[in-house]
């Protein structure tokens, strides 16, 4: 048990994010009353630097090489670096959305940027976690930072309420996560996930089962799986749009990253998921309910942020399908999950960027009717939103289509096609989801504008609105490279 400074190189993405996060929070003190756009620029630089470092480290690791760091606390492998690069990019996109939205809606708060990077640093820990203690630390670093970001608009009653609901539900889930970890620890006598894997068969079955169920429930809270999803629509609606985008894209991806580590990799295999510890049995049920309930609730929403919130709940269900497939030993499981996470995160950032663009100070314009006729006045924004919505609905030629296709395909690859029923539910729900995505598209293209739309103009916002749909289309037309990650 010695500290090896050589390992620090492998956690460079975390170090870059954490250091720039702390520096940005301090820098805010010197920007009182000044223009905060410079802070946004520094945030983008820090986040992208961490992504670049991730890419460099990714190229140094062999395809199936894995290196345990700091007495088996963290793990360095290609999966982890794909995810850390993704979190860096999403944090950079969220930072690009923030300045224009802050100016347009009067919440100029510089702390937003530093805390954004600190949240991303927690996500990076989750992507590289190899120990229950680091999973807990990562979840909490991320969650606490996001609670703060949700609450940043202190005088907004909606913002307050969203933050409190999110905080109470999140902290409650943390209690379950920790108690679940405590019971699993009691059964196997170690928190290192590498060793847990080997000792599961000999561990106390009662403690393991209860502990595993509690952990599944806690993670279900974090990915907003039904019936643990009640906080999500409220938190998404009440938070400022750039924060909502970050929550919907990155927080969900990070929670899934943690589940990939805990369930998919360390507790997967032929016997464990259904047999010895049985985490897959509750998870397949949660996945089925989540996809269905999320979709049906989304149909009823008139508020775009709530509609996207329920749609993201439904996407969380599909991610759980992929996770079960991966845990049950489907070979393409992990690659399809990573593809899905990348496509979903970028699509979500793009969609919320358009939401931030269309609203202005007088009117956030979150009602679907208020988007009527957007295409005639602002064709580019309508086009960007359409591409994002088609991707969310899983239509070709966008990346959203291949994301769903490959996740369902990997679910079919499991032994005896035991997830066939889940795939059937998923496909039916994809068809249903087209309905509410197209409702917004119809409003934009086929209805006449009743009110003049004065959008929030900003180069950074336009950049996000252009880049995200383009990358999603690229992912859909040339999916090969993305799948080989």
């Amino acid at each position, binding site marked *: 048990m010695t500290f090896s400074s050589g390992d620090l190189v492998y956690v460079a993405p975390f170090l870059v994010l954490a250091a720039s996060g702390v520096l940005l929070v301090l820098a805010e003190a010197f920007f009182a009353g000044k223009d905060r756009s410079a802070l946004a620029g520094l945030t983008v630089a820090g986040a992208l630097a961490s992504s670049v470092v991730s890419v460099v480290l990714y190229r140094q690791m062999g395809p199936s090489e894995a290196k345990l760091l700091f007495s088996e606390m963290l793990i360095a492998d290609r999966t982890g670096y794909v995810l850390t690069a993704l979190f860096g990019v999403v944090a950079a996109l969220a930072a690009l959305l923030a300045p224009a939205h802050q100016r347009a809606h009067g919440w100029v708060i510089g702390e937003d940027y530093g805390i954004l990077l600190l949240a991303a640093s927690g996500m990076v820990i989750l992507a590289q976690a190899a120990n229950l*203690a680091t999973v807990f630390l990562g979840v909490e670093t991320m969650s606490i930072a996001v609670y703060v970001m949700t609450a940043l608009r*202190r005088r907004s*009653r909606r913002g*307050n309420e969203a933050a409190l609901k999110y905080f*109470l539900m999140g902290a409650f889930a943390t*209690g379950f996560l920790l108690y679940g970890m405590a019971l699993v620890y009691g059964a196997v006598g170690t928190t290192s996930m590498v060793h847990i894997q080997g000792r599961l068969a000999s561990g106390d079955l009662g403690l393991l089962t209860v502990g595993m169920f509690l952990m599944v429930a806690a993670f279900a809270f974090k990915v907003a799986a039904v019936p643990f999803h009640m906080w999500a629509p409220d938190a998404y609606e009440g938070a400022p749009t750039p924060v909502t985008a970050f929550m919907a894209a990155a927080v969900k991806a990070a929670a899934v990253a943690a589940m990939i580590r805990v369930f998919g990799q360390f507790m997967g295999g032929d016997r464990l998921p259904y047999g010895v510890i049985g985490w897959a049995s509750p998870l397949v049920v949660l996945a089925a309910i989540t996809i269905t309930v999320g979709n049906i609730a989304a149909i009823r929403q008139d508020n775009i942020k709530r509609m996207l919130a329920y749609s993201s709940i439904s996407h969380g269900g599909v991610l759980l399908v992929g996770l079960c497939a991966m845990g049950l030993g489907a070979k393409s499981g992990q690659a399809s999950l990573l593809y899905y996470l990348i496509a979903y995160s970028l699509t979500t950032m793009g969609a919320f960027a358009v939401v931030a663009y269309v609203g202005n100070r007088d009117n956030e314009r979150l009602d679907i009717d208020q988007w009527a006729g957007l295409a005639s006045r602002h064709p580019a924004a309508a086009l960007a939103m359409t591409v994002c919505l088609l991707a969310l609905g899983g239509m070709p030629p966008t990346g959203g289509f291949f994301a769903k296709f490959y996740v369902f395909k990997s679910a079919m690859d499991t032994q005896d096609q035991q997830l066939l029923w889940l795939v059937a539910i998923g496909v039916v729900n994809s068809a249903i989801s087209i309905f509410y995505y197209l409702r917004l598209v119809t409003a934009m293209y086929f209805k006449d504008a009743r009110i003049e739309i004065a959008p929030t103009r900003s180069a950074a916002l336009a950049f996000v609105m252009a880049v995200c749909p383009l990358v999603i289309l690229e992912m859909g037309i040339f999916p090969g490279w993305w799948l080989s990650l």
Partner: protein
Amino acid sequence: MLMNIGFGHFLVLAAVLFAIGAAGVLLRKNVLIIMMSIELMLNAANLTIITFARMHGDLGGHSFAMVVIAVAAAEVAVGLAIVVAIFRTRRHADVDKLNILKH
């Protein structure tokens, strides 16, 4: 007569504390009481971890518990700040009356 206090007693105590905490979160309406209940849950889990660490003779559990204590303190600090913000805009801290955001 003094009873022999073993690991089992600690584990049962922790389980009871956790159940009380979880019930408190679900049943109480005042935000501060709910936060106290959450703390109770976290500390019950901590007690469980420490007990198992002694049982298995594993120092990793002890350090895990220290991490949890630090994290819980940070969480409460943020939570109380949110409660102060809520109280400033509404003059109450009753979760049942927070219903601007519709379901």
